[in-house]
């Protein structure tokens, strides 16, 4: 039976969409990528994700699924030959816990640290580092969060692999240093070097330039 898989995603700098691209490629599923202009969203996108009106949205045989972590679970369950989530329920629970931690806490706390005014920065950086330490401890000496191969949590942690390095350069604030987080930094190197990830992840320099332009007014006001 012919399968129709479409991914409505943001342009190259949109990291949540890249999560899904990586997962689909790892699973070996053929899909069509439809790039959305986030300043001018298509009627189809607004129909498929009428609640949040956001990317990414996966369309499988005409059925839409929204929210990147939920889409990852759907991919895991629908194409189970190359699972991205661990098989053991406890390991799965841990992967879900940490993915939520990254999306709900770490990103926001780190964003605060990057953009804080000098007088507030110390406390914000301290908080962000505490959270990064927790993630560092979770990784321990493993090659990837998923073990020997990239899995759900590695894909979720794309923000750590890409966005942190970019923000560090743009905002000139050091958070993810090799000195403080050797495991995480080694993981970043290995993760971005994986063939499929390399295909999907934008080059750091390109991202830095893009973010610099995006935040130009914010940077000028500091």
């Amino acid at each position, binding site marked *: 039976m012919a399968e129709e898989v479409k991914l409505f995603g943001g342009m190259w700098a949109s990291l949540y969409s890249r999560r899904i691209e990586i997962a689909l490629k790892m699973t070996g599923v053929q899909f069509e990528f439809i790039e959305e202009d986030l300043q001018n969203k298509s009627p189809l996108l607004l129909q498929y994700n009428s*609640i949040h009106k956001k990317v990414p949205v996966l369309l*499988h045989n005409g*059925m839409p*699924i*929204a*929210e990147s972590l*939920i*889409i990852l*679970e*759907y991919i895991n*369950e*629908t194409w189970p030959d190359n699972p991205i989530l661990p098989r053991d*329920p*406890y390991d*799965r*629970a*841990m992967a*879900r*816990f940490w993915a*939520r*931690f990254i999306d709900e806490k770490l990103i926001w706390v780190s964003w605060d640290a990057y953009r804080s005014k000098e007088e507030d920065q110390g406390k914000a950086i301290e908080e962000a580092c505490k959270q990064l330490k*927790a993630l560092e401890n979770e990784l321990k000496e493993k090659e990837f969060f998923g073990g020997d191969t990239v899995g759900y949590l590695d894909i979720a942690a794309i923000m750590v692999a890409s966005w942190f390095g970019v923000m560090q350069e743009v905002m000139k604030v050091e958070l993810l240093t090799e000195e403080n987080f050797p495991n995480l930094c080694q993981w970043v190197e290995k993760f971005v070097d994986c063939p499929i990830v390399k295909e999907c992840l934008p080059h750091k320099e390109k991202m830095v330039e893009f973010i610099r332009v995006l935040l130009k007014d914010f940077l000028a006001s500091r």
Partner: protein
Amino acid sequence: MASSSVADQEGQVMLLGFWFSPFVKRVEWALKFKGIEYDYVEEDLTNKSTLLLTSNPIHKKVPVLIHNGNPIAESLVIIEYIDETWKQNPILSQDPYERAMARFWANFIEQKVTEPAREALFSKGEQQEKKVKELKEGMEVVEGEAKAKLNDKTLFFGGGNGVGYVDIVLGWTCNWMETIEEVGGFKVLDPESQPQFHKWMANFREVPFIKPTLEPKEKLVEFFRMIRQDRLGLVANK
């Protein structure tokens, strides 16, 4: 009731909680729904146990489920773990698309109903007004979903007469929402504009394993009033 294989599977199940927490209650509902035996440990908000602090060092919050010595935190993560570990009385559908939809609505409820409600409870003035507005908007969407999915034959989001994941996640509203309104001093519940939601709440309250777990409103109001006053530094008579 439990066969020896189920008992082996259970091992030791412990739940760390607060009697007043809707997040803990959700996990209890999931455990009771599946008929899982567990030890409940009442934590002290002002004096959290070493077990809690070591089991959930990241957030230091309840609920924490400890299964055979392994801790799991975050109510939604715990409920999925329970569903995947004990196969009887499934909470989520087996169908990947149905599961994705249930997870979507669970996330929506957390972001657009649970969070704003909590923030409205612990704020005042303009900040509270903003959160109440968000909460009302979230409720509107929930009413729309209830209108679309529920009818005389389908009482719950889980389908038919059985509760499911979304019902368990939304279930806190059937008891705590009135408390939050009273303590916070605002109104979001409106039977006229939310008829399907009110029907769902009434049905949920009557589910045999849910009903005995619901704390009396007066007890919740007294407790949350104290917490709100404490958080906002308010004077005793409001």
